[in-house]
Structure formats: structure tokens, C-alpha cells
């Protein structure tokens, strides 16, 4: 499996390599073409110079030939001619050295030496020789020079054979040059021969000259035909040159040449006829060789021009491709840099950051956030993720701290509540016997502290008083008020004046209860076990239950208002018999109104039934049974409201402790 980094890098390298290679190949090819064009130009120049050299040698040949024959019709001196020939040949040699394959240069050197050899006998034989010897020497000179010219032409052709111009116009021009060279050579050879005819030649030599002239005429004719076939050229000076050559050759030179040949073909030609024809023809031959040389020059110019164009085109192409190559290399390098610095590296650092973030490392610095591209946007999004992670960690930390605070606060509250509960419980009297009454109390706060309270007390030689109060509501406020109610109830009992009934004492309690405190319900009663009676006042409290020793269970009391609800209210006393062994159960509404999960209250009726069923139990067990029954009813051990039970029992005669107390 390749990573994106590897894939991108290798793809880019491959692409870059492919592009670079193909462009480099093209560039190489273009340079190769340029080199070829340059070589072609050089070789063309060499051939041009060789052609000129051939013309120069041919002219020198004419001069040397005629001079050897003693012919006076010489335009230039031999020295002039040979100087020009040497100059042209030297130029050609120099150029040839530049052409690959220096074999041609060696051949040219040999030709130059040959020329030197040719020149010396030509000068020597001038003075003394007779007519035949002159003719013989002239023929030798002619043949020698012609051999040099032929070699030069051959050299030229061999150079041309190495070239293969792609441009058809150039190729055509090359052919034209070739044929014009042949034409020119044939005509120039004829020029020399015709000039020779003017001299006094022996008949054999004349005969030979005639043969040569005819042969040259045929060669010229062939060359001219070939030139005519190829004369459809675009170049205007070239076309003009070809046209004037055609005029000079076909209209002027050829008819005269035909005439001369006709005269010469006569088995016994008239000397004067030959001379007059030759003379006219000689002049025209000079004209046409000049025209031919001019045509050749314009052909040279044309080829040079074409080749120069070709070369500059090739050089432009080469430079163009070189430029493309450099651009391509630059583009690949720049692209590689961009891919590396803007894709691969940011991708790598993004990856590292993401992995670190996923691994929970929030310290790692994020990649460059200043970029505006895709990577920058992703890095920016990563910042959001990082901040979210930091935020989550911080919130978690804060939540823990908050939980600890809450826990501490709860513990503090709990401690306070427990302490308050202990204080409250310590206020309640422990189960005991008092003045012939045995009492057992149970207080079960719904939450540590309770709004219920009770007490059993006896003034010296007085009856046994009891009360059970339940302050409205529960919690801390109800608990504190219950303490106040307990104090107020105890005061009401203790400060009860001699004639006051219990109901009057309760009325006073009701009137004295501070208005701004919550109301409370209370059962307050007095018991006279020694005479078997008791009475009680019910103030908004659930009715107490009297369990007779004989087995009867009855509720007593007629309701009444709670304390602190209506100022000036009056209360009723309920009197009942209270024999030894009778038990009075006083309770708070937390018992009778305890609800089961379905929301049904336990009710006083169920309580009475429950007591009836468990009447045989001793008091402690009876209370345990009631508590258990309530828990079962509720389906849980917790209470919604405070629940208080107080059982007062007329002491049995067998109860020694009661007897002691009674005494």
C-alpha cells in the first residue's frame, strides 16, 4: 500500500521524467537538424567554390590552350588567370577543411599540384615549337586542364552525394547547378576549341577539334534540355537568368553552332568558312559562358539564401525547443516544490496533528494557520477540534471540582442534620413508667429531623399528662417549630391552673401561639390510672385508638381545629375509661396517611384492623408490627412524612414497678 506522499512523489517524478525526456529528445532532434543545416551550408559553400574553381580553371584552360596554339585572341594574361584560379581554389580548400571528412581537401591539394605541373610546360613550349608540335601540346594542355576540371566537378558531385536536402526547391536548385555546370563546362571547352579553330591547325587536329566540339555540343544540348525541364522555379532572378540563358543558347548560340558544325562536317572544309563561322561563334560562346556563369551565380545566391533560411529556421526551432525544455524542467521543478511544500508537507503535519489530537495530546502545536488554501482550512478546522477537546477536558475538570464541592456541602448538611436529629431525639422521653402509666414512644423522621414531637409528664401528685404534636410541613423549619410547640404544650400543662379544664388549657395554647409560625395538630390528654379514667383533647390530629384489655379496639375523639389556625377557637374534651391493661395509641398522620406505590393511604380503618389482629402482642412487639406493616404498605423503608407512635398503658397489678410508682 502506497501512502499519498509516495504516490504523489512517484507520479510526479514519472511525469516530470517523461516530459523532460520527450522534450529533451525533441530538442536534440532540433539541434541535430540545425547541425545538418549548418553542414549543408558549409558543404554548399564548398561546392559553390569548387564550381567557381572549375570555371576559373576552364578559363585558364582556354587561355593556356589558345596561348599554346599561338592564338592572339586572349582576353587576359595567363598570370591573371592563374592568380584568380589559385585564389578561388584556396578559398575552396579552406572551406573544404571545414567540411567533415577531409578526404576532399586532400584531393583538392593534389589537383592544385597538378595545376602547377600543367602550367609550367604551357609557358615553356610557347617560343620555339612549330605548328604540329603546338597543336599537339595544346591538345595535351586541353586534356590536362579538362581532367582537372572533371576532377573538380567530380569532387563537387561527391560532396553533393553526401547531402540530402529535404527542401525540394533546394534540391531542384542543386540539380540546376549540376546541369548548368555541365553546360558551362561543355560551352567553355568549346570556347577554347573554337578559339583554336581560328589558329592555323593541322587537319588532323582540326578533325579532332571538330569531334570534341560536336561532343561538347551534344553534352550542352542535353544539359540545356535538362535545365529547361527544371526551369519552373519561383525565384524571380533565377527565372530571369534561366530565360536569358535560354535566349542566349537557343536563339543565338545554337544556330551558329549548327552552322559551324555543318561547315566542319564538310569532308573538305573551306578554311575561310570555318574561320568566319568560328569567329562569330566564339564571340557568342563568350557571351553564353558569361550568361551561364551569371546564372550559376544566381543559382548560388538562391541556394545560399534557401540554405540560410533553412539554417535560421532550424536554429529557431532548436532555440524554441531548448526554451521549452528549460521551461519544462522549470515547471517540473516548481511543481515538485509546490507539491512538496503545499501538499505533502502540510498533509504530513496535518496527519501528525490529527493523530496527536485523537490520541489526546493537546499540547502539540497545530500546523500553520495562516494559509488560505485547502490545507489552511483543514488546519483551521483542526483548531476547532482541538479547542473542543481542551474545552471538554476543562469542563470535565470543572465538573469534578463542582461535584467535590457539592459533596462537601452535602456532607456538611448531613452532619448538621444528624446533629440536629440527635438533639431532637434527645428531647424525647425514653420509654418508662410514670404514675401508673407505662409509655412507649417511637418517632421515625422522614428526613433526620422531624416536625413531630411528644412528651409524657407528671406534676407531683397530679395526673399523668401526655401530648403528641405534629407541625405542618417537614424539614428544618418544621423541626424547629416542633421544638417550640413542644415547649408551648409543656408550658400549657405545667401552668394549668387548678380549675382549668384540659380544653381551656388548649384554648390558651391556641391563643398564645405566635401568628407567624406554622400551625400544628396535637393530642393532649391526662390519665388517672388509679381511678381508671382519662380524657383528651383532639386538635386537628388523627383520632387515637383505645385498645381494651378485654380485646375491644376503638377510635376516640371528634376532630377539632389545629393550634394556630383560628384565634379564640374552643376545643372539646373526650373522656374515656382507662383501666389497668388498657392501651391508648396516639399517632401522627404520617402513619394513617402513608401511601402505597399506587397512591392509596393506609387509613385509620386498616390501623384498627391491624391492631385488632395483633392485640395479643406486648407493646414493643405491637409497635414493631405496626412499623413493619407501614413499611410493607409503602413498599420501602423511607417515609414521606414523619411518623410518630406513642402507646400509653394502664399498668397491670402484677407490674411491681407501677405499684412502687403508685405508692
Amino acid at each position, binding site marked *: 500500500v502506497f501512502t499519498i506522499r509516495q504516490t504523489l512523489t512517484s507520479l510526479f517524478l514519472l511525469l516530470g521524467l517523461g516530459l523532460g525526456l520527450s522534450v529533451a529528445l525533441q530538442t536534440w532532434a532540433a539541434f541535430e537538424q540545425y547541425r545538418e543545416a549548418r553542414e549543408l551550408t558549409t558543404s554548399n559553400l564548398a561546392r559553390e567554390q569548387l564550381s567557381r574553381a572549375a570555371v576559373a580553371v576552364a578559363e585558364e584552360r582556354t587561355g593556356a590552350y589558345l596561348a599554346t596554339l599561338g592564338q592572339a585572341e586572349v582576353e587576359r594574361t595567363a598570370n591573371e588567370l592563374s592568380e584568380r584560379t589559385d585564389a578561388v581554389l584556396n578559398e575552396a580548400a579552406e572551406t573544404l577543411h571545414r567540411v567533415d571528412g577531409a578526404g576532399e581537401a586532400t584531393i583538392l591539394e593534389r589537383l592544385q599540384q597538378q595545376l602547377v605541373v600543367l602550367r609550367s610546360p604551357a609557358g615553356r613550349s610557347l617560343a620555339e615549337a612549330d605548328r604540329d608540335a603546338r597543336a599537339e601540346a595544346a591538345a595535351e594542355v586541353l586534356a590536362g586542364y579538362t581532367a582537372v576540371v572533371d576532377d573538380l566537378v567530380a569532387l563537387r558531385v561527391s560532396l553533393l552525394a553526401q547531402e540530402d536536402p529535404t527542401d525540394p526547391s533546394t534540391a531542384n536548385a542543386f540539380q540546376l547547378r549540376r546541369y548548368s555546370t555541365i553546360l558551362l563546362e561543355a560551352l567553355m571547352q568549346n570556347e577554347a576549341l573554337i578559339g583554336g579553330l581560328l589558329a592555323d591547325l593541322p587537319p588532323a587536329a582540326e578533325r579532332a577539334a571538330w569531334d570534341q566540339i560536336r561532343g561538347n555540343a551534344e553534352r550542352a544540348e542535353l544539359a540545356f534540355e535538362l535545365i529547361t525541364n527544371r526551369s519552373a522555379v519561383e525565384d524571380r532572378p533565377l527565372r530571369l537568368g534561366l530565360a536569358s540563358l535560354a535566349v542566349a543558347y537557343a536563339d543565338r548560340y545554337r544556330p551558329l553552332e549548327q552552322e559551324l558544325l555543318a561547315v566542319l562536317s564538310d569532308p573538305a572544309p573551306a578554311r575561310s568558312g570555318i574561320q568566319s563561322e568560328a569567329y562569330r561563334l566564339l564571340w557568342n560562346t563568350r557571351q553564353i559562358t558569361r550568361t551561364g556563369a551569371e546564372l550559376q551565380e544566381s543559382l548560388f545566391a538562391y541556394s545560399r539564401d534557401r540554405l540560410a533560411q533553412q539554417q535560421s529556421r532550424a536554429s529557431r526551432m532548436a532555440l524554441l525547443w531548448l526554451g521549452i525544455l528549460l521551461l519544462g524542467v522549470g515547471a517540473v521543478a516548481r511543481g515538485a516544490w509546490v507539491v512538496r511544500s503545499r501538499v505533502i508537507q502540510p498533509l504530513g503535519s496535518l496527519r501528525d496533528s490529527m493523530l496527536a489530537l485523537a490520541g489526546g495530546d493537546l499540547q502539540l502545536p497545530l500546523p500553520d494557520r495562516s494559509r488560505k488554501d485547502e490545507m489552511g482550512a483543514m488546519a483551521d478546522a483542526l*483548531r476547532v477540534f482541538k479547542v473542543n477537546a481542551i*474545552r471538554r477536558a476543562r469542563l470535565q475538570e470543572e465538573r469534578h471540582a463542582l461535584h467535590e464541592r457539592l459533596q462537601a456541602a452535602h456532607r456538611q448538611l448531613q452532619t448538621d442534620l444528624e446533629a440536629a436529629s440527635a438533639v431532637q431525639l434527645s428531647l424525647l422521653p425514653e420509654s418508662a413508667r410514670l404514675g401508673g402509666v407505662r409509655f412507649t414512644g417511637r418517632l421515625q423522621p422522614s428526613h433526620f429531623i422531624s416536625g413531630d414531637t411528644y412528651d409524657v409528664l407528671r406534676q407531683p401528685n397530679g395526673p399523668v399528662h401526655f401530648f403528641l404534636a405534629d407541625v405542618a410541613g417537614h424539614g428544618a423549619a418544621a423541626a424547629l417549630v416542633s421544638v417550640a410547640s413542644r415547649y408551648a404544650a409543656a408550658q400549657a400543662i405545667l401552668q394549668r391552673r387548678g380549675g382549668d379544664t384540659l380544653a381551656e388549657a388548649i384554648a390558651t395554647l391556641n391563643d398564645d401561639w405566635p401568628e407567624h409560625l406554622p400551625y400544628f395538630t396535637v393530642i393532649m390528654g391526662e390519665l388517672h390510672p388509679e381511678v381508671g379514667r382519662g380524657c383528651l383533647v383532639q386538635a386537628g390530629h388523627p383520632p387515637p385508638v383505645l385498645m381494651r384489655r378485654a380485646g375491644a379496639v376503638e377510635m376516640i375523639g371528634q376532630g377539632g381545629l389545629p393550634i394556630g389556625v383560628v384565634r379564640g377557637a374552643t376545643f372539646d374534651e373526650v373522656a374515656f375509661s382507662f383501666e389497668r391493661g388498657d392501651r391508648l395509641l396516639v399517632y401522627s398522620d404520617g402513619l394513617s396517611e402513608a401511601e402505597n406505590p399506587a397512591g392509596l393511604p393506609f387509613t385509620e380503618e386498616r390501623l384498627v384492623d391491624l391492631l385488632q389482629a395483633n392485640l395479643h402482642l406486648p407493646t414493643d412487639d405491637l409497635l414493631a408490627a405496626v412499623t413493619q406493616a407501614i413499611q410493607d404498605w409503602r413498599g420501602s423503608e423511607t417515609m414521606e412524612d414523619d411518623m410518630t407512635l406513642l402507646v400509653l398503658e394502664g399498668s397491670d397489678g402484677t407490674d411491681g414497678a407501677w405499684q412502687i410508682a403508685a405508692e
Partner: protein
Amino acid sequence: MEPGKSRQSKVQLLGRDVAMSETDARAEFQRLQALRESGLLTAPAFPGLNEICQQAKAHFKVAMALVTLIDKDLQIIKARVGTTLEQTPRSDAFCDYTIRADDVFVVPDATKDPRFAANPLVTGEPYLRFYAGAPLIYLRDIRLGALCLLDPKPREFSLGDRAELAEMSDEAVSIIMRQVLDRRSAAAGL
């Protein structure tokens, strides 16, 4: 004050009144209540808030960073870096816009924002151009003020920038909450 300025603030005030829906009005009431209850407006400087301003200024490379509370008619600046401003009229407060939502509120260039182009803090000293504020979210829908960045050069504020600023404002709220809670606990004897 120039006549142009007073007219502008009147228009702004009008705009706010019009924009204030029933929920806004309740939020406004609750915010003011929370500010009074917590005693934040009058409380002495909170240690830690200035550090947050410094951190924000350095991190975002801005000229000023403030912790503001938006009272009924004033913007109270509880902590600051880069300025000595103690309070501004609420009508000039950028943060008054910030407290209307839980998101970070950004003004890339105040001169191009019709709501702020004529604000005296934009047209005069300190020639503010850039504003970014993250609300101090105290309770649900109750945003007491903002942790804000101010600069006289306009700039862009990316998602990452917003998240980071919001995190800093959260930290500021934590600092405030912690101290309010400490004070209350101390008062309750817990």
C-alpha cells in the same frame, strides 16, 4: 457631542428597541437580575480576567482585549489590556450585539458595517475597525457580557479563531463563577 453622533445613537437605540422581542426582553431582565444577584457589577477586579485578556491579545495579535458586562445603560469593562477604558454607553457597545446569541460575533471591518460605521469608537479614538466578541454565557440564555478583541486594523476571523476565543470566554466565565460561588459559600458558612 456632535449632533451627528447623538442622532446616530438614537437610531441605534431605536433599532435595538425594535429588534427586542419578548424573549429578548426576558433575557434582558434575567441578565440584569443575574448581574445584580451576583454582585458582579460592583465587585472588585477579578484576578485572572486580566490574564485572560493578556493571553487573548497575544494569541490573536490585536491591540486590545476586554472583558465586558452589559448593564442596563452602560457597558462595564471588568478587565482590559491595551486600553484604560472603564465603561462606555451601552449604545456604543459592540458587545451589546454579542450578548444576543451564544455564537462568537465578528465585525471584520466596522467602517463597512452600517451598524457600526458611525460608532464614535470607529469614527474617533481608538478608530476601531475590527471586533470579535465571545459572549460570557452564565446560565441558559443568560449572557452577562463578552470577552472581546478590538483592533484598529480590519482582519478576518476564522472558525478556529472563533473556537479559541469562545474557549477563552468560557474560561473567563469559569473564573467568574468560581469566585461568585466562593463568595456565596463563604457567606453561607459552607
